[in-house]
């Protein structure tokens, strides 16, 4: 099969099909082939936006309506030659050709042919596919009945067979368990688990593994990660001063909801309207933190209403993107250029959030009302108190020893000892490790006189402690939530300006006309939520299913996760998307069902090995004739290294933590040093186990995100992000090679294999390699590693000081193994889902 394909590839340069498709001779589809061209090149002037419409002509509808003529005015179905549209797009006269040169839009030859073919075939219009109701599609017949394990596979295989292709063979059991563990828990499997799974001959072992991973508390953490991106979760307010906020309780709610397998319709409803559901509790209110994750400001000159508008716009942006895959923001200032969303409809959506209570001027050093004080669904009151007490103790140590200044102070003390007098002299004469806090206080005061950072740090740390203590006194952590303020008349804002309400255009809460109607007298957020998850909503289930599909396969059925509108990609497998969406709803929006359905398919279980022919034929894997290797998300890269080293602290939930990052990153950009001392302006690392927690608990400062996560494409969490780029840069190499966290992980990994003194080098190499990659090294790989070990030993034996510097001990062995561990933790495979 592959050989035949290769011949084909060498013999023929595959012609690129119109928009995105791959087949060369499939019948034209309006939605897939024609509308994308019209949308991208024509709708800006001949589309839904009335304000910028030229010649009163719409090309997004066939016939005329009020104030406009339709596309059939300029084309003759069946007769491209007789169609004005073709004359215009084929014209060589600058004053006549469409699109006009000044638009800088150019139709390719292919696109022109598509339009002509479409007209020849009758110029049939269809509604945009994603606004059509979800169809309960039955799986198609396939030739190879032996391959499918379930309905998904029939859709995938039928398409492959249409293209004359066969699926890839099943991945090895080692690859499968690693893939599953990383995809479902975000953590690699333990070597013993891998061995047991590889050796098991139980045909039910795979399903049992899936069940176990779905039942793990790490499943909720894994699922929460993309949700935190989408919900723009962060631990600071974002604008201007960017001081701290407390939303970790909401994060914990998300993790717990995934673990309890809260049905997606309820998951959505609670996050949009948990304050309004019948019998609302603190827990349901906590869910609405989703909407309060908007950035906010308390910058001095702020006009509160301007920012209240910005917070609402952010909510619309997030809700429309996350739940519907619609880019509603465009309609904030003008009718949408491509999709049937008018400015009026935007403000109908706006009205759902306009009636909520949310001050434009945010609070300082913490949460802005409305807020609740409550306990987390995972972290109870006592555990929370213990966390805060621990953090305060850490900060109190920093009052004595500000972390950034310890070296500078030591140098100063040495110099000062010569000339000091009185109590300072007494204090300096005591050995550093025997000084009392009082003696340090004397030293700090004197040191602070010459080092301005000292006083600033003390003020900043005092502020952090004060805020934590006030939380303790208040009896618990708080979280921002939604709360209605009472009815408010919403107007269309002219060009989106907060201070230009168009009083001739009052609007009430409502949904776009292109979507199913919302039947309610005076709908509010609760009705909005219920409408979103109603069975006939065409978008919600499709968008949700698509996101999970992308998380597990590396590519959405609709590649543009954030855009299901006219400018978005056409689905590679529209019937599969509908099949999954309709069954997802029929299964009661059961998220674990959906994940299980996908990961137990034969399609998911395919090998990710590539051949040049496959790469050539289907570079983006649109046909799903293989699985793809994917570099892990930033958080799982770090978690994986800590896990391999045996360092990872796997506690689930709790307040955010502060793993080490380079000194000064925050204060160089922040308001650190301002006399009033805001929170989160300077970074104070955690101590102990909190340095080794999973990365989704890392404190997220929006204006200076954790650098080693940002290097691996984590978004900055300022706005909703439903997809991450996967880049590959030298800065990533520097992180994995040199970041102290990774250096520490390499050393710990080396120590762990050295524990058993009887082991041979070969056995240790094998154990170490397995911890990072979930497989033993091939002989050729083992020999490369053993050679490296010898080289490192030779170097460290010749330079024992280097070994001491590397490990803190005079151990050539440990230093050499740490070097080897660095190599292994840096393998592409170590940070990749197979």
């Amino acid at each position, binding site marked *: 099969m592959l050989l035949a394909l290769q011949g084909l590839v060498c013999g023929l340069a595959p012609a690129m099909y119109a928009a995105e498709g791959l087949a060369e001779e499939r019948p034209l589809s309006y939605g897939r082939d024609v509308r994308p061209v019209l949308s991208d090149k024509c709708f800006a002037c001949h589309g839904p936006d009335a304000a910028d419409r030229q010649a009163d002509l719409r090309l997004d509808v066939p016939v005329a309506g009020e104030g406009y003529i339709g596309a059939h005015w300029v084309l003759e179905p069946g007769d491209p030659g007789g169609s004005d549209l073709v004359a215009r797009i084929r014209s060589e006269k600058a004053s006549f050709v469409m699109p006009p040169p000044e638009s*800088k839009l150019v139709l390719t030859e292919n696109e022109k042919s598509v339009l002509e073919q479409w007209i020849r075939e009758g110029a049939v219009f269809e509604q945009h596919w994603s606004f059509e109701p979800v169809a309960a599609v039955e799986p198609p017949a396939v030739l190879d009945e032996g391959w499918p394990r379930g309905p998904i596979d029939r859709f995938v295989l039928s398409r492959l067979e249409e293209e004359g292709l066969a699926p890839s063979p099943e991945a090895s059991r080692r690859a499968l368990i690693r893939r599953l563990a990383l995809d479902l828990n975000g953590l690699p499997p333990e070597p013993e688990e891998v061995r047991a799974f590889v050796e098991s001959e139980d045909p039910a072992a795979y399903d049992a593994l899936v069940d176990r991973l779905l039942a793990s508390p790490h499943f909720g953490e894994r699922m929460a990660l993309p949700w935190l991106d989408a919900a723009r979760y962060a631990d600071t307010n974002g604008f*201007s*001063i*960017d001081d701290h906020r407390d939303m970790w309780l909401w994060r914990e709610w998300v993790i717990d909801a995934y673990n309890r397998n809260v049905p997606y319709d309820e998951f959505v409803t609670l996050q949009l309207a948990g304050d309004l559901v019948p019998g609302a509790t603190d827990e349901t209110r906590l869910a609405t933190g989703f909407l309060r994750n908007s*950035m906010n400001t308390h*910058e001095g*000159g*702020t*006009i*509160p209403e301007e920012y209240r508008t*910005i917070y609402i*716009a952010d909510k619309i942006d997030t809700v429309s993107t996350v739940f519907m895959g619609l*880019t509603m923001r465009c309609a904030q200032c003008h009718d949408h*250029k*491509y999709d049937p969303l008018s400015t009026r409809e935007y403000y109908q959506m706006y009205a759902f959030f306009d009636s909520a209570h949310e001050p434009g001027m945010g609070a300082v050093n913490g949460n802005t009302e409305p807020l609740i004080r409550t306990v987390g669904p995972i972290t109870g009151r006592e555990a929370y108190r213990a966390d805060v007490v621990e953090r305060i103790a850490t900060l109190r140590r920093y009052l004595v020893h500000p972390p950034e200044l310890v070296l500078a102070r030591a140098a100063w003390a040495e110099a000062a000892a010569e000339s000091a007098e009185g109590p300072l002299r007494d204090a300096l004469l005591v050995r550093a490790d025997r000084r009392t806090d009082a003696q340090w206080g004397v030293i700090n005061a004197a040191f602070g006189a010459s080092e301005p950072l000292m006083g600033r740090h003390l003020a900043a740390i005092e502020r952090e402690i004060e805020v934590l203590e006030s939380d303790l006194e208040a009896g618990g952590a708080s979280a921002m939530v939604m709360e209605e303020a009472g009815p408010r008349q919403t107007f269309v804002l002219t060009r989106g300006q907060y*201070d230009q309400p168009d009083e001739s255009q009052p609007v009430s809460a409502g949904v776009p006309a292109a979507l199913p109607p919302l039947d309610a007298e005076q709908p509010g957020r609760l009705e909005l939520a219920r409408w979103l998850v109603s069975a006939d909503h065409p978008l919600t289930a499709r968008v949700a299913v698509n996101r999970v599909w992308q998380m597990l396969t590396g590519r959405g059925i609709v*590649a*543009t996760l954030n855009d299901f509108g*006219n*400018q*978005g990609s056409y689905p590679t497998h529209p019937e599969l998307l509908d099949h999954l969406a309709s069954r997802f709803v029929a299964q009661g929006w059961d998220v674990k069902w959906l994940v299980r359905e996908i990961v137990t398919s034969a399609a998911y279980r395919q090998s990710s*090995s*590539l051949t*040049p022919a*496959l790469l050539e034929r289907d570079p*983006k894997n649109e046909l799903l004739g293989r699985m793809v*290797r994917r*570099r892990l998300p930033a958080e799982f890269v770090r978690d994986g290294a800590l896990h391999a080293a045996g360092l990872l602290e796997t506690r689930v939930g709790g307040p955010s933590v502060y793993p080490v990052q380079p000194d000064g990153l925050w204060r*160089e*950009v*922040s*308001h650190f*040093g301002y006399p009033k001392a805001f929170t989160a302006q300077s970074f104070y690392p955690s101590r102990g186990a909190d340095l080794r927690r999973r990365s989704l608990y890392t404190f997220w400062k*929006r*204006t200076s995100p954790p*650098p080693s996560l940002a290097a691996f494409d984590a978004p900055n969490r*300022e706005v909703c992000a439903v997809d991450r*780029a*996967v*880049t*590959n*840069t*030298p*800065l990533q*190499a*520097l*992180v994995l090679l*040199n970041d*102290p966290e990774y250096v520490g992980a390499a050393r710990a990994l080396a120590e762990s294999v050295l524990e058993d003194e009887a082991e041979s080098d070969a056995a240790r190499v094998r154990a170490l390699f397995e911890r990072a990659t979930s497989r033993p090294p091939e002989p050729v790989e083992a020999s490369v*590693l053993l*050679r*490296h070990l010898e080289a490192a030993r030779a*170097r460290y034996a010749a330079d024992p000081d*280097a070994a001491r*510097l590397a490990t803190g001990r005079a151990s050539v062995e440990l*230093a050499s193994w740490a070097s080897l561990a*660095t*190599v292994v933790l840096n*393998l*592409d495979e170590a940070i990749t889902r197979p």
Partner: protein
Amino acid sequence: MKNLDRLRRDLQRRQLLGGALSGLGTAALATLLGPKSFGAARGEPGSNDAAPAPHFTPRARRAIYLFQSGGPSHIDLWDHKPHWDRLHGQPIPPSVLGSQRVTGMTAGQSQFLTNRPIRPFRRHGDCGRWVSELLPHTAGVVDDLAVLKAVHTEAINHDPGITLINTGDSQVGKASLGAWLSYGLGSENEDLPAYTVLISQGNGKNPGQPIFSRLWGSGFLPSEHQGVRLRAGSAPVMHLANPSGVDRGLRREQLDALAALNGHRAQVTGDPEIEARVAQYEMAFRMQASVPGLADLSDEPESTFDLYGHDARRPGTYAANCLMARRMMERGVRFVQLFHRGWDQHTDLVPHLSAQCRDTDRASAALVTDLKRRGLLDDTLVIWGGEFGRTAYSQGRLDSGRDHHGRCFTVWMAGGGVKGGVEHGVTDDHSYNVVDGGVHVRDLNATILHLLGIDHERLTFKFQGLSQSLTGVEPARVVREILA
């Protein structure tokens, strides 16, 4: 996509050469993968296949943006009016104030009294430009500067203002100017990023207003295009230095082992992304060798410090960052952006503005002079400016301070493709409104792109269904009046 195509091409080429993957040394791999690229995107966000830029012959090949964060006072530094003394202490007439909004900080003020510049102006250069005594060194290079005196923005506060001028939109989420340049033009060297950022804090207002990573962020562009923040000191790139006890020799051995193992895996899996990663490690290794040299000023003659001032010896100062910027221009970095904080003189106008000027004036001018002497100014663009200007009226009592003012402010440009010794734009008698030659911040950005060979309407990236661009949907105009 572009990278994927390239990788596929490489893969085919390798087959033609008949070489197995593991048969290639790492250096060869790096070459195959394109030494002129810093980082490689793997994602395929939308159909962004078109080779972005340049669209025409650029006038400047690289640029330095001396960003003055906080809003430098155009009244006190650049926008000379002959009649300030007469107006001093007089209320600004309502006809001048108009109905436009002011910030919450002075909106409640009962009167808006004109505050003349805190120091006198004099004419300088062959062009006879009026410049404040606060900028004696910059005054010496005015014949090289094009001074835009009627730049304007809608923003009245720092966060929206600085976000708008750096990313083209006051709403967060867009890509920064530098990220667009990296995306559009790529890198010209193999061991430094295309876009670097240097931060300094002035003595004027300390701490200055916060700045944000979004100002040099990539927004919706692949994150490899985000500005790389350089730190003061000998290892300016984060995690550049090897850990203790690992020298360059051992590091080389580690990378060789890594390349062998990754190469083997690439052969087994057929995944070209692994080879791309090998190339990135080689690039990191080269950076480790070259970047410390970038920051090591010991090769600079004494005359350099005479020019930039002795602050340039202190890592992390504005002067040191200006010198670093020049050194990066010499090494082919596409875009260097300095953020100097502390220009927010609501109070303490006289001492704080004077201090800001002392921190920056000499080095800014030195940079222009230095680039010129080295023949680099012809194809290096230098931009100086902040997110807005300041009010002609005093905030509180006279000479105390000035509030934010976005309706007109001054920005200067020099070098690649810019006429020297010109000014453009006229403001009214109170330096409060634009009279003529207004330049919106998107016109400013369109002009910067133009000088670098980019048509601002054609450098686009599809995101959320729109062809996003730096200048947004409103029309933007290249300020042709200042083009050489």
